[in-house]
């Protein structure tokens, strides 16, 4: 066993002398079922009398629907129902989204807004018949000019995407913190870059699944499937369908990945309406892969940036300006628009930048609507910011690591409030950098690079950093919709019950996926009550029985659920302690839990083991103290501390923890093909106490792979008619195990002073950092030729084109 970092913690809250599970590489209990496919995934679910749905989608990016004839489809044997836009419009409100008013209905009504938008849905005996029926639906389309150019959309040119609007600019706001103008006016050096980050998205191995059933007798709706957070989709259902939450019950299945896309509010609404029309028969829709690529509201971050950094001669960064314009696609569904404002929560990254301006906009185009994707808009931000730092270092002749060191927030400055109001809880960025440089042997790498350059090889190096906010609270969403989000709560709850033998059932509100909550909840509770890990069973509640909770969003689970589980354990210990006081004939104030037994302070011989106390509590109602019921059960809802609504300037305490990362990348560009080969990749991550180090490594390596996808491979490409050209995995390229390099990962631990066990949120951080690390290294490799890549992904063709430009320029 490793030395346990918990033991060193001032806020070490586990009443055990030596934790046995927390901080250890406990194998994930989720793994055997998930990895062998034995878990009951949504598509495995079968219900008696269940029908299968298929969706007809618009072939046009923008077209008026002059008429729909479903009669031939309805006449096909095996077809139970066909639902079209007019019925959807009559029975529901548009799909929920913030800011309000920028979405359509769950089916296209008067016109279609992107190629792939649902136009009709069929329920039939099986999916084959359902797809046959789609071919029998006749839609009379009048093609309209599509809006495909976001820059024109921002300038007010071209067709308007949404009926009833006179603009395509859905959201625009310029945030200014500090005296940016003066800093730029007085700068010794200003570096600029215009850049383009193309669309990509989360692509879980399991697509979205929803099984809906309407009970006509008690007027209730039951949903099952791959829903990641019941209480996040519930408001969308309530808002669109006009039902009360008490009429809706959502059961979640284990997830084969989510990465943010498993909310699919549009389809949940659509399936619910179809189920209502079916009047009792359950209906299942399993999104197919092309639907996922072209039809879900799941594309992300399609950004045009103009960026500038003001720097002093000594390398001090004094101000940054970034303009980010996001080509958002057809609608602003659900919470997706939040991705454009999230950069203000960590705008300066690891650096003491006193002034910055963030001018952001989200515009509508006739493309797939964006939705949340792991990283929630931060990867492109660091990809811009870190490149500016490198450009400044180059101009000043400074080493890339040293300019960063010079600007780091210092270890004695925490808690550190950045100009946009967020508070970084703790960190030691210089120590992280030193660890990285030492482990990578940075000096030797620079020599290797110099030697390679002498041979004419294009070898590049980078050192980049990032901050990963461990959960971002609802005040950020209030920036988009003060009406919907005048709230500071971002709850995560847990119900905890003990039986008469000291065994526990801990109930969480979101399903198995990549978050490892079943494993780490077990670890914490087993240590708290000094029982075996197997004595703790973690179960998933449905929407009607779960505690308030947002589930796995914004790197929050270790922080939020980790807070909930310790909070619940404390409450249970208090409750049991009052019973133990009766058993031990002591004052309740003198009884404490230690190493699995309640003992009288100062007289440890007088003690009662936890199971005995729980058993007594259940068995001897006659002995229970006043106000204590005979039930060793509690619930606790954690909320982020010190959150407040954003002020007029947009300042708030948005996060809870600030995990820091520093990555080094060394790569070589092939002069002839433009291909990139990663030679060395080293990362250091400081997410405080690692509750389960192997889970943390899994999060880091997984998000690194997705970051590599953004850096080099993944892009949704549209033609000038708004047709998506990358509708299969032959053209939308995610890195496979053959492309992801072997990564050296080193742990740094600056415990968080604000979380239950010193942990910090981790899950998105490597995805924040890797695109920047790869691009900065590519541009370092290309630097001797005087060319520069300002697009993500940096495809071989783009790099080759830049090399051609270098070859032909004088």
């Amino acid at each position: 066993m490793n030395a346990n970092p918990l033991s060193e913690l001032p806020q070490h809250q586990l009443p055990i002398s030596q934790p046995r599970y927390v901080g250890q590489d406990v194998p994930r209990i989720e793994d055997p079922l998930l990895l062998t496919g034995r878990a009951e995934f949504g598509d495995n679910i079968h219900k008696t009398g269940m029908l299968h749905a298929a969706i007809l989608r618009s072939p046009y990016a923008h077209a008026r629907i002059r008429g729909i004839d479903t009669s031939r489809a309805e006449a096909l044997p095996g077809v139970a129902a066909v639902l079209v836009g007019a019925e959807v419009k009559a029975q529901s409100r548009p799909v929920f989204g913030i800011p309000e008013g920028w979405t359509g209905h769950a089916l296209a009504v008067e016109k279609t807004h992107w190629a792939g938008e649902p136009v009709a849905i069929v329920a039939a005996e099986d999916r084959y018949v359902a797809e046959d029926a789609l071919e029998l639906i006749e839609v009379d389309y009048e093609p309209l000019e599509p809006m495909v150019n976001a820059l024109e959309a921002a300038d007010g040119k071209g067709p308007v995407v949404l009926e009833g609007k006179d603009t395509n600019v859905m959201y625009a706001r310029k945030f200014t913190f500090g005296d940016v103008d003066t800093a730029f006016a007085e700068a010794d050096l200003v570096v600029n870059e215009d850049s383009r980050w193309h669309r990509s998205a989360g692509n879980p191995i399991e697509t979205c699944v929803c099984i809906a059933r309407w009970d006509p007798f008690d007027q209730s709706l039951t949903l099952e499937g791959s829903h990641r957070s019941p209480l996040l989709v519930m408001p969308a259902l309530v808002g669109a369908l006009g039902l009360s939450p008490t009429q809706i019950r959502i059961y979640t299945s284990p997830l084969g990945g989510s990465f943010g896309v498993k909310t699919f509010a549009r389809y949940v609404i659509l399936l619910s309406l179809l189920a209502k029309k079916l009047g009792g028969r359950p209906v299942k829709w399993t999104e197919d892969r092309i639907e996922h690529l072209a039809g879900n509201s799941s594309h992300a971050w399609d950004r045009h940036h103009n960026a500038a950094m003001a720097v002093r001669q000594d390398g001090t960064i004094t101000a940054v300006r970034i303009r980010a314009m996001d080509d958002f696609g057809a609608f602003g569904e659900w919470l997706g628009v939040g991705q454009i404002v999230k950069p203000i929560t960590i705008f300066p990254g690891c650096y003491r930048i006193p002034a910055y301006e963030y001018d952001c906009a989200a515009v509508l185009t006739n493309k797939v609507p964006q939705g949340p994707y792991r990283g929630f808009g931060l990867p492109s931000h660091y990809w811009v910011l870190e490149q500016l730092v490198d450009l400044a270092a180059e101009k000043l002749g400074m080493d890339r690591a040293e300019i960063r060191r010079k600007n780091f927030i210092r270890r004695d400055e925490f808690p550190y409030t950045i100009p946009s109001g967020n508070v970084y809880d703790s960190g030691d960025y210089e120590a992280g950098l030193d660890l990285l440089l030492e482990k990578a042997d940075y000096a030797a790498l620079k020599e290797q690079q110099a030697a390679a350059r002498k041979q004419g090889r294009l070898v590049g190096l980078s050192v980049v950093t990032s901050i990963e906010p461990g959960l971002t609270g609802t005040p950020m969403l209030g920036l988009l919709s003060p009406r919907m989000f005048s709230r500071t709560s971002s709850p995560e709850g847990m119900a905890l019950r003990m039986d008469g033998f000291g065994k526990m059932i801990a109930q969480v509100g979101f399903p198995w996926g990549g978050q490892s909550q079943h494993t780490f909840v077990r670890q914490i509770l087993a240590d708290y009550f000094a029982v075996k890990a197997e004595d703790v069973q973690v179960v998933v509640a449905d929407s009607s029985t779960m505690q308030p909770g947002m589930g796995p969003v914004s790197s929050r689970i270790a922080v939020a659920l980790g807070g909930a589980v310790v909070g619940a354990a404390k409450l249970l210990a208090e409750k049991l302690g009052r019973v133990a006081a009766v058993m031990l004939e002591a004052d309740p104030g003198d009884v404490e839990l230690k190493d699995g037994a309640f003992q009288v302070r100062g007289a440890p011989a007088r003690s009662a083991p936890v199971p005995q106390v729980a058993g007594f509590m259940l068995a001897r109602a006659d002995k229970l103290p006043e106000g204590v019921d005979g039930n060793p059960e509690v619930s606790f809802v954690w909320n982020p501390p010190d959150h407040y609504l954003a002020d007029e300037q947009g300042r708030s305490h948005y996060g809870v923890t600030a995990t820091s990362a520093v990555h080094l990348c060394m790569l070589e560009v092939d002069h002839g093909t433009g291909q990139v080969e990663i030679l060395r990749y080293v990362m250091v991550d400081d997410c405080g106490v690692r509750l389960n180090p192997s889970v943390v490594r899994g999060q880091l390596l997984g998000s690194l792979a997705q970051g590599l996808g953004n850096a080099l491979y993944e892009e949704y490409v549209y033609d000038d008619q708004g047709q998506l050209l990358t509708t299969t995995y032959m053209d939308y390229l995610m890195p496979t195990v053959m492309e992801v390099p072997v990564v050296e990962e080193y742990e740094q631990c600056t415990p968080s002073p604000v979380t239950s066990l010193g942990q910090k949120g981790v899950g998105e951080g490597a995805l924040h950092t890797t695109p920047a690390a790869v691009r900065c290294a590519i541009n370092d490799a290309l630097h001797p030729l005087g060319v520069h890549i300002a697009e993500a992904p940096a495809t071989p063709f783009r790099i080759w084109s830049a090399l051609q430009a270098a070859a032909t320029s004088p």
Partner: protein
Amino acid sequence: MKPPRFEYFSPRSLSETVAILAEHGDGAKVLAGGQSLLPLLNMRLARPSVLVDINRVSRLDTVRPHGTGGVAIGATVRQRSLHGDPTLLDRLPILGTASQFIGHQQIRSRGTICGSLAHADPAAELPALAVALEAEMVASSASGERVLPAADFFVDYLTTVLEPTEVLTEVRFPGPPAGMRWAFLEMSRRHGDFALAGVVAGLSTSDDGSSIKAARLVVFGVAGTPVRASAVEAALVGQPPTDSVLTDAAAEATRLLDPPADVHGSGAYRRALAQTLTVRALQACRESHGTAEPAT
């Protein structure tokens, strides 16, 4: 992603197979490994009324020696045999080397060699190898068998000279010229993807290495079919295998190519890739990095 209704046949003999094809002609499609056909069916891009599954047809799953140093491969032999079958590895190791570029292990375990040839994707590896190695295709129908040189087999993108009533029952790779060293290179965005451009090159040189005795050069992924640079092969004979000779040969071999653009790059990029890879492949042959064929 479900196919429309079709009729399914699972014949046990070749005569039964060709009889079904004769009856259904245009409406029938042969299913072997299914690695290209099934996605096309599921996306409803191919809509055959009849599917003729040849996986249970006897005697089509064999690899046998063919002539001096060559091999004949039956219609249902899987691509994994290219790097697993002893006869193939012994006689034509270049096929084993090149097979690592074909998709992934799962694909090679199902996909057939003849299926890839009959599908005729110009970015696939096997058609290019067949042309470079001067393979012969055996097409069977109810009216008998015809043997077609690979050079005449491929017509255009996904198009061969096979009639709807024919099935490709065997491909015969002759033994390659003695002493020829081969190289196979391709560029794809990721390992296992279809090539943006690729090249099969073979060189044999005089004993002292000072002059080229024979050359083979086929580029692929850059036109509707694999492109053999016969004139360049002929021009190389007698020349010294210097960098400048090989570079000029690569330029000449790719000069007239006009590949289409797609989401991965422009036509000019693909042509440049073909040229770069050709130089590298010829250099690899010269420097014995290529795969030497056993002298026969």
